[in-house]
């Protein structure tokens, strides 16, 4: 796959997931849906870091740092939502 096509695929996935976030929110307000919305956010962050920022070719420590940023935040936000429930 050419570099440009790969970037378009990343963008299409990001756009689709962004729309999915809103559709998930409109379908209800359960804990499961909230977790799904957070998971979508983590996947989007991963697409940006590995796709657009090219962390897939970066030294592992840097890649882990960037990918874990969104993952850790999503876990903490998720735990906070569970605490509320």
């Amino acid at each position, binding site marked *: 796959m050419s570099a440009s096509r790969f970037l378009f695929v990343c963008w299409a996935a990001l756009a689709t997931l962004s729309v999915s976030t809103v559709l998930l929110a409109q379908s209800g307000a359960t804990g499961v849906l909230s977790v799904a919305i957070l998971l979508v956010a983590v996947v989007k962050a991963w697409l940006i870091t590995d796709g657009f920022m090219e962390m897939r070719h970066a030294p592992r420590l840097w890649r882990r740092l960037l990918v874990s940023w969104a993952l850790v*935040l999503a876990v903490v936000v998720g735990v906070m939502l569970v605490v509320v429930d």
Partner: protein
Amino acid sequence: MSTSVEPGGVAPRHLPGDLAMWFFILAELSVFAILILVFAVTQALKPQLFSESRLLLNTSTGLAMTLSLLTAGLFAALAQAQVRRSRPRHGAAWLLAALFVASVYVVLKVTEYRHLLASGLGMEHNTFFTLYWILTGFHFLHVLLGMFILGWLAERCRRGLYDASNRSGFESGVLYWHMVDLIWVVLFPLVYVLG
């Protein structure tokens, strides 16, 4: 730039842009992480207030802003691909396209801010809106700086100052924009959708 060799490896792992930009990005992400955690903790303390206040925001506008930022990110990445092929003027064209799409975000955000202020939903309205203004306002400033950087890169590309062998500064500028996108994809569900 920094590289390390894969154990079995053929291609060495490589960090695009300047190492200094990566430390700057880490610092920025740390600051936003603290703000996001403050938002999440406050939401846990005042869930009712946050749920009711969030209803006053337009999720469709938030989605449109997301698509605007992500599309600008795609165009900036395509500009980088052109510079790597030593076609800086093509890169400049993609950067101008990125700036145009990013300006849609700016228009939407300013319209949203004006609407909220006209409705009396300023920073002092309640805790949700205090944090909303701090988080999104701080991010908005980063978008403006990112647009300035993309414009600066476009001008340097137009003058043919970047090519395949001289692109580290260009990559650093584009990385800054991707960081702005990265922060937004976490902010968007947190502020506009969840709860």
